[in-house]
């Protein structure tokens, strides 16, 4: 089944490490933007497309009014065949209160993803976040009160001034909240962001420390009942993000909004990072990345992001020289970077840390 991604490119303040597309928020622009989203959704009316996930990403989708979210979801319901959907909204703890959360829940949102990032206020400030941890904690409890049962929190690893110990405390604090899902990202300096400077590079964790932090966090989360299912994603049983899984399992998704990516009808395409063009256009522009992506390469590249890994049967079906891949895998297994068995090849957490190199190794022999 197809997933639906809706990009809401507005932020109250741009975080210095973020390179996702966003612009400053204004009421008028936001409404024009929502109208454009609606226009683009209506293009799919009557096509009989089955969907089971909707994901509001950003930017800061929680800046929208609940009625705007309802408007969008109503149109989604009109235009697609919607099957007991997972409806996620990314939320900044500062932009929500109990009342708004209740309205969002009522509009149809049933999963929240909070950008908590850390349980340490000093670190949050250094990250340029608007909230302190108390605010984030209250947002989570409010969400529970508003009857959200599926709540995810983001945490960042290796940020400036973070230590192995402070990270450990943050993870402990986070896992004690009533949440079902955690995304733990190692900070990566993106080109052109405010963090793209010498000072931050010096202050953030080096590769060795980052690796230690990552392995420690994986272990800590497992112990707390959050099983790893992807390089940076952990969930209580049954609470894996259905939408995000589509990206890694080769399922189709339709992206609506400036900078949104799609994999639909066999091709990968995206809409330019340009709010004005999106708002003014009748129909969003489509720039095709790939007409006919290589199934095998994508399967290996994306499949190895998942804890369940890749299946040898599928490799064979996609035309790979499975013998050579297994040979590589067994070599990596000796070094503790992957596990081979049960018709699967999967990376260990140490393997995940090296996944780019490992994927390149596999692809070099297919």
């Amino acid at each position: 089944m197809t997933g639906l991604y809706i990009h809401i490119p507005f932020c109250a303040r741009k975080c210095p490490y973020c390179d996702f597309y966003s612009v400053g928020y204004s009421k008028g622009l936001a409404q024009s933007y929502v109208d454009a989203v609606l226009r683009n959704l209506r293009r799919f009316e009557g096509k009989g497309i089955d969907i089971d996930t909707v994901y509001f990403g950003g930017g800061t989708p929680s800046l929208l009014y609940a009625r705007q979210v309802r408007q969008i979801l109503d149109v989604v319901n009109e235009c697609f065949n919607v099957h007991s959907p997972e409806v996620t909204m990314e939320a900044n703890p500062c932009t929500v209160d109990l009342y708004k959360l209740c309205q969002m829940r009522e509009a149809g949102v049933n999963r929240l993803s909070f950008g908590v990032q850390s349980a340490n206020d000093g670190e949050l400030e250094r990250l340029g976040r608007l909230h302190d941890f108390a605010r984030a904690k209250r947002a989570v409890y409010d969400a529970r009160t508003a009857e959200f049962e599926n709540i995810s929190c983001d945490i960042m690893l290796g940020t400036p001034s973070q230590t192995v110990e402070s990270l450990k405390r943050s993870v402990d604090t986070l896992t004690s909240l009533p949440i079902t899902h955690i995304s733990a990202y190692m900070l990566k300096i993106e080109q052109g962001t405010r963090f793209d400077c010498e000072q931050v590079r010096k202050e953030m964790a080096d590769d060795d420390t980052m690796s230690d932090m990552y392995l420690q966090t994986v272990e800590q989360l497992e112990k707390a009942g959050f099983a790893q299912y992807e390089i940076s994603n952990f969930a209580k049983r049954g609470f894996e993000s259905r939408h995000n899984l589509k990206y890694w399992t080769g399922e189709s998704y339709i992206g609506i909004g400036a900078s949104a990516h799609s994999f639909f009808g066999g091709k990968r395409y995206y809409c330019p990072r340009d709010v004005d063009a999106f708002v003014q256009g009748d129909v969003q522009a489509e720039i095709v990345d790939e007409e006919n992506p290589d199934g095998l390469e994508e399967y290996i590249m994306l499949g190895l992001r998942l804890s369940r890994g890749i299946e040898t049967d599928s490799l064979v079906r996609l035309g790979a020289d499975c013998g050579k891949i297994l040979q590589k895998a067994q070599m990596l297994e000796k070094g503790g970077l992957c596990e081979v068995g049960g018709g699967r090849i999967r990376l260990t957490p140490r393997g995940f840390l090296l996944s780019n190199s490992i994927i390149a190794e596999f692809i070099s022999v297919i």
Partner: protein
Amino acid sequence: MDQNKIRNFCIIAHIDHGKSTLADRILELTDSVELREMEDQLLDNMDIERERGITIKARAVRMKYRADDGEEYIFNLIDTPGHVDFNYEVSRSLAACEGAILIVDASQGIEAQTLANTYLAIEHDLEVVPVINKIDLPSADPERACNEVENIIGIPAMDAPRISAKMGTNIKEVLERIVTDIPAPKGDDDAPLKALIFDSYYDQYKGVIIYCRVKDGHIKVGDTIKLMATGAQFQTVEIGYMGAKDLVPVGELHAGDVGYIAASIKDIGDTRVGDTVTNAADPCKEALPGYKKVNPMVYCGIYPADGAKYGDLRDALEKLLLNDASLSFEPETSVALGFGFRCGFLGLLHMEIIQERLEREYNLDLITTAPSVTYKVTLTNGETEMIYNPTNYPEPALIASAAEPVVNAHIYSPSEFVGNIMELCQDRRGSFKDMKYIDTNRVDLHYILPLNEIVYDFFDALKSKTKGYASFDYEMKGYEPSKLVKLDVLLNGEVVDALSFIVHEEKAYARGRRLTEKLKENIPRQLFEVPVQAAIGGKIIARETIKALRKDVLAKCYGGDITRKKKLLEKQKEGKKRMRQLGSVSVPQEAFMSVLKLDD
């Protein structure tokens, strides 16, 4: 043209003493090139030659000159390389001339290489005409330079023209000397054709172009020529002389002439520099004495970075061989590097130039192994083997004795640097022979040095220890017994044959340590820890460890932007292509190169 009006000559000079500049001035004065066509160093038409300011290949050019006696003369200038590595080229050029202009720098005096080439010219019975250049420099001391020429070479020089090639001062005087001092050729135009090939190159349209000096007889278009060494015969299609910019067809060449022959020769193996061209219908009885053939002194393996380019590399080497007879090569195989060639060179500069020409002119990406010399090994069963490739060095248990080539080296330098030079030579296992004062503040230091100590970077080290003032020349002396060991490099426990080299016992430890350090620097971290070891006959003498890579991951891959990850993967694939896979270790080309420069 009357032979009496022909002058065939070359120019001998030390690097930077102004040979190419003088050649340019002579070309100008004889109106051989339009002024607007003049560009500096007209004869050095290889890019590398102009960039490095040196002459690598012999070139020839014909000019007309109306002398003070009212007669018109034909000048054939054959340009020669100045560097010691290219002695062979020099001797080929010399054999085509009757005279040589010796340029001496008025401020620096005679240098070692000039001396070697001058002796070579005297050996070839050439008339040597000294010229003192750079008199425009404030530090010029023409008197002293003339004295040096008389004292060291032993030819009269007090009335030598004092010129500035750069400023164009007194060039006319040089031209007059060419007319009066250099003898005219004395060939027999009616005798059977006898012409010396002194250079050749491959032209895409005309086939092989032979540069030759006609000693006896004559040749015209349509004649069938025979190349005496190979016996191959060809019908000539174009004959002419070398203009300053282009070849000029004239239809025939006579005794005393210098010119070119094109005969649709497709197989570059047929023409050998040093061979004699004769007329197939009326051949001469015996070939001209061959040139002084020089044997390669330095060997190294050359491999295409991309194994699929092996055929291209072979073609390129064959084409280079055509106009660089001093190059030698034969196929070899390396476990680490695949198929390639073991190439022999006259020296390190020669090696560098060939590599550069292969890369530039033939657009090849190369991996070269460390240069090595030829060792003589006597086995316990009494047999003697010459070892060109360190990989073939026998097991220590099988070796009764080993010998390495040594050279007689002369270093000319201002006396203030003697201490530094001695230190350097001592460090390079040199044995001191004697020291002579050339004049009050310049010395000639004579050392016996093992060749393998100078093939790396001796010249660079010498320059840096003498502020660039010392010059250096050497000749093979023969073999001397030596305590040699083969040093192997192990990556992840496996010997990498392409990195093995032979070294003197005393130096093995230091070299092994430096080498492992260098490799550690140049091999990127891998998925596993990789030990880098240096070993002599199974005994590890140095070890470094390349730590395992810990982190190479794109943590965030969502929002559906898969292409970004793909691009990263493409980059990674490209990077992997540039690596050599040695067992489970990926080794970049730079790592192979880095071992060539251990002393950095």
